[in-house]
């Protein structure tokens, strides 16, 4: 019996599911008032007040998605902000990275400022963006862009710097003009670095959107969480966090797919794995 269910490659998913269920079961047992005698708090209801109850949280999520159907607009807004922040941040980072990597003098001039801007805790810019761009989508996108930009920028900069000199010389000997070098050598080489940072940058675009919403907005999942927190509705806060987590996982999986499709020229460890 144990032979069939003991952890192995084959039963991986099942075991992952078991862990998930165990966490929620433990959470349930420890928080539902009266189920076990209180040992940490002075009252049966306090655990539920501080940590929420899984069943009520799931109830909330089901209401959002299937009964009230009012989460879609908020999710849509958060997703829009994430995608815009990601796209604009990546484009700016790619452009700036290519430019500075190919003109060392400009890079030398801007170097201290880029370091300073990267070192600055940029989340603190959120209130300023709210003043500049209002409480709508734009201020969240701006925050996300500042987060994504630097990740992509540094990766592209590094990527262009590390283009193999032999491949460059070879392309030149084959007759590539400066434009063609950019298009056929620097850009593909830099893209591989962009993709290696894609998971991080999508995550940060998401962080930018949610934190921006949390700090001041009228729509979005971050806004829902803020509202619930204002009325000490811990179950809704937890429900919001769970929805965000599931969403982030979904985004990450999508990025993984795109990466796999576009980066098929890169050697993958699995390809030469033994049977």
């Amino acid at each position, binding site marked *: 019996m144990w032979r069939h269910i003991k952890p192995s490659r084959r039963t991986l998913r099942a075991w992952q599911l078991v862990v998930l269920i165990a966490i929620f079961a433990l959470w349930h047992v420890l928080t539902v008032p009266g189920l076990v005698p209180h040992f940490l708090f002075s009252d049966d209801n306090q655990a539920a007040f501080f940590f929420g109850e899984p069943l009520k949280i799931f109830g909330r999520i089901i209401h959002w998605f299937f009964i009230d159907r009012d989460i879609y607009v908020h999710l849509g807004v958060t997703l829009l902000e994430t995608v815009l922040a990601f796209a604009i941040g990546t484009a700016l980072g790619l452009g700036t990275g290519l430019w500075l990597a190919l003109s060392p003098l400009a890079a030398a001039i801007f170097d201290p400022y880029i370091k300073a801007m990267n070192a600055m805790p940029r989340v603190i810019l959120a209130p300023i963006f709210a003043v500049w761009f209002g409480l709508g989508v734009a201020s969240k996108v701006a925050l996300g862009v500042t987060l994504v930009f630097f990740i992509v920028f540094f990766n592209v900069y590094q990527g262009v710097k590390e283009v*193999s000199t*032999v*491949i460059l*010389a*070879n*392309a*030149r*000997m*084959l*007759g*590539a*003009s400066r434009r*063609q070098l950019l298009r*056929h*050598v620097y850009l*593909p*080489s830099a893209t*591989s670095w962009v993709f290696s940072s894609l998971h991080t940058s999508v995550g940060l675009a998401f962080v930018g959107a949610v934190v921006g919403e949390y700090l001041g907005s009228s729509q979005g999942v971050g806004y829902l969480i803020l509202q619930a927190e204002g009325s000490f509705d811990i179950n809704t806060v937890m429900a919001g966090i769970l929805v965000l987590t599931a969403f982030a996982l979904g985004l990450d999986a999508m990025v993984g797919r795109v990466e796999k499709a576009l980066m*098929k*020229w*890169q*050697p993958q460890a699995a*390809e030469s794995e033994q049977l």
Partner: protein
Amino acid sequence: MTVPALSLDGVSCTFVARDGDASGYAALRDVSLSVEAGEFVSVVGPTGCGKSTLLNMAAGLLAPSTGRVRVFGEPLVGLNRRAGYMFQAESLMPWRTALGNVTAGLSFRGARDADARALATEWLQRVGLAAFADRYPHQLSGGMRKRVSLAQVLVLDPDIILMDEPFSALDIQTRQLMENEVLALWGAKKKAVLFITHDLDEAIAMSDRVVILSAGPGSRVVGDFRVDLERPRDVAEVRTAPRFVELHKAIWDVLRDEVLAGYQQQLAKA
């Protein structure tokens, strides 16, 4: 007399010295060398004697400090557009398939996509890789990658072919196959070839002439031997010919001193 395809007239190349010596590090000093159209010339020499520097100057990737490079009589300015260069290190673009790598030069030079593909496919066939056209370089073996490189260079039909120890990373069997392939392709088209190698056997087996560079720094030409072996040759068989052995002995007598000198210098530095 006809104009040589490639001639280097008294070229020197001085790099900025690592140890701060103001006069710099002279890799080559006053080297003169010419390759006639259709001639296969090999350059041999001890390690670190500036063989690759010589080739980079012929390619126009590096400007000589003094002296000049002429291509079919014209002074070389910028890159050598009539030359194809096969590098020692991996030079294929990893993000392009084998076919994509072979078409690269054609499309850089403005060929139509369909024409480029047709010609590149033909060349992949010629180097025996037709079945591997859609593979990426990391999916090919070292020998296959070299053959793609060869097709990549030859598809452009250059008048001068520069090769920098192209087969040094290959095992001996693959290497002999490749050498014979190169000889066959060269025999059909008769381009001017400047071939760099550290392997004297390879140099004699393939070339019309073998040029010996002295140990660096400041390498010079210290020997120039005509190889009068009959063509077509098989690189494995020709090694047992009496004339091959004679030539090998004569050239090695010159080369040995340089190799020893180079070795002594490396010991002195260490």
